[in-house]
């Protein structure tokens, strides 16, 4: 079941949460809406669900499997919605929570008691909580509660599954487990799913496609590889992780950023303008002697070797701090010391024209 929205705008008073957004999610996809808080990602999700209404506009469309549902109430849209804080009914057992969506159906469509029991047990099995059907939500851990919330949403056999920061309230370890579990679940049941997150790692790891949002607009839509390795805008570049930034100028055949000179054609920028160079920490290297490529002098300020990478902070002399991530092997081969003078090289660069809009 596909999801498609067109011309969606939403304002709260003077604040425009969404500015003319359009998006299509193909059947069976797992899509992440990624952005900082206030970027409109949750508002978009709630509009798809029917929990919020977009600003009235004759061109606005919300399509679920190509059927316009813009006028439909949330209760008839058949969407599964999972909230950040679970929103489990506290006075009901896990079993009753999951069965809720089936029991509230009109008598004619309501499954028999036995059919409900069978379905709930199947879902309890799916979320690996077979023996906890009689517990109350208060007696479960955060991760268990979120799985119950998911089972409750799946019980109504929704057309699409919408998750609002589903792992936001969990601690790091549980978050990772639940993320892997959701990925496997999706591979199993292939329900069209959209989840909201502000954690780029979560989006890149879990989603088939990532929709990066900023200030009510979609900045880029692409596979995790595309948005990470080929960010279309400066915002996406910055949002995907730490970046080192250098100001410079594009000239007729080269682009100059402090100590580094790049081939202009490789930057893809028009000559005669100011530009910014972005380099990710893991796309830099430190050297003892130049390998022919442009290098800059720097002083080692700080070394943090705990973790999968060694993080080295460098001072370029101008007071700017540069972050470089090295593999432990590379670090051990060079063995830089704090206070030592060293050379920095670039392995991969991205140049964006200077944005004068403030």
């Amino acid at each position, binding site marked *: 079941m596909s999801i498609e929205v067109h011309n969606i705008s939403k304002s709260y008073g003077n604040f425009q949460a969404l500015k003319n957004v359009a998006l299509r999610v193909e059947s069976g996809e797992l899509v992440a809406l990624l952005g900082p808080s206030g970027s409109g990602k949750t508002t978009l999700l709630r509009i798809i*669900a*029917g*929990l919020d209404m977009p600003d009235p506009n004759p061109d606005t469309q919300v399509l679920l499997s190509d059927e316009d549902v813009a006028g439909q*109430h*949330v*209760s*008839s*849209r*058949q*969407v*599964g*919605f999972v*909230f950040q*804080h679970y*929103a*489990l*009914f*506290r*006075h*009901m057992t896990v079993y009753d929570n999951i069965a*809720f*969506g089936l029991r*509230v*159906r009109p008598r004619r469509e309501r499954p028999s008691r036995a059919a409900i029991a069978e379905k709930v047990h199947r879902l309890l099995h799916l979320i690996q909580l077979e023996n906890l059907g009689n517990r*109350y*939500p*208060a007696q479960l851990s955060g991760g268990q509660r979120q799985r119950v*919330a998911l089972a*409750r*949403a799946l*019980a*109504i056999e929704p057309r699409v599954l919408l998750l609002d920061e589903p792992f936001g309230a969990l601690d790091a370890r549980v978050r990772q487990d639940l993320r892997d579990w959701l990925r496997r679940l999706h591979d199993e049941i292939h329900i069209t799913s959209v989840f909201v997150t502000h954690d780029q790692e979560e989006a890149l790891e879990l989603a088939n496609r990532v929709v990066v949002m900023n200030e009510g607009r979609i900045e880029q839509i692409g596979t995790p590889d595309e948005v990470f390795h080929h960010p279309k805008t400066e915002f996406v570049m910055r949002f995907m992780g730490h970046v080192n930034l250098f100001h410079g100028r594009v000239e007729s055949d080269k682009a100059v950023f402090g100590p580094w000179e790049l081939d202009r054609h490789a930057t893809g920028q028009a000559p005669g303008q100011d530009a910014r160079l972005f380099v990710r920490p893991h796309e830099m290297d430190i050297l003892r002697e130049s390998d022919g490529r442009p290098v800059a002098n720097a002083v080692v300020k700080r070394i943090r070797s705990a973790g999968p990478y060694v993080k080295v902070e460098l001072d370029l002399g101008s007071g700017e701090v540069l972050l470089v991530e090295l593999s432990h092997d590379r670090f051990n081969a060079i063995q830089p010391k704090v206070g030592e003078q060293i050379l920095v090289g670039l392995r991969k660069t991205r140049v964006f024209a200077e944005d004068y809009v403030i």
Partner: protein
Amino acid sequence: MSAHPVSKWRMRRRVMPGYGLTLGYTICYLSLVVLLPVSALTLRAANVDLAVYLDVLLDPRTLAAFRLTFGAAFIAATINMVFGFIVAWTLVRYPFPGHRIVDAMVDLPFALPTAVSGIALTSLYARTGLLGSVLTPFGIEVAFAPLGVVVALTFIGLPFVVRTLQPALADLDPEYEEAALSLGATRVQVFFAVILPALRPAMLTGFALALARALGEYGSVVFISGNMPMRTEIVSLLIIGKLEQFDYDGATALAMATLSLSFLLLFSINLIQWRYAAKTRSAA
């Protein structure tokens, strides 16, 4: 790791200072204000002969008074639970113009001296009164009838229900309703299956408070009820009557019975609350 086991209790440092002082004060204060009068009554009651108890408590006039007091209080608290809910719901959910004035009005039954409420209600519902003159032709008698007692007790109990429900309603996260709606529930189903059960503890508390207040009410009832023995006489009035006849033993017996019954009622309501809370309240 104290070397002296004796000092272990004192060694336990707390972040907030003044634990000993405040606990001591609390116990002292409660003893003076609550425990002392209650135990005085209990001691006095222990000296009363069993025969007096049986004599007073099995008197048909007494039984009628108990029926009226507890029955009317129960009915009034129930009425307040339903209509107080609607008032609280409206005040929290729909901030209409003038909603602050209405909100302040809820407290009026609190603020008015009960005698004033009694006189106001009586003049309103008396046969010649504004409402009484409309109701009497239909055979509905309020003033100087048991119904009047219910009306008075409803009046004074309303703020208790509204004021306990308001914060609970305001705290009710709209996510629960949204979750239920997204699962296909209708508005009515959301109300009865999600909102109402979530508010059950607050409703019970409000009910208990309104009930307790109604059981103890005296001032407003004596004006509107007419105080007819066997018909509109409440227990408090019986006690006063005994005291005026210097029948201290009889008054004590009545007081003791009222105290025990009230305590039993409130205790069972609290018991329901505890059992419910143990199940559903999050440890976090």
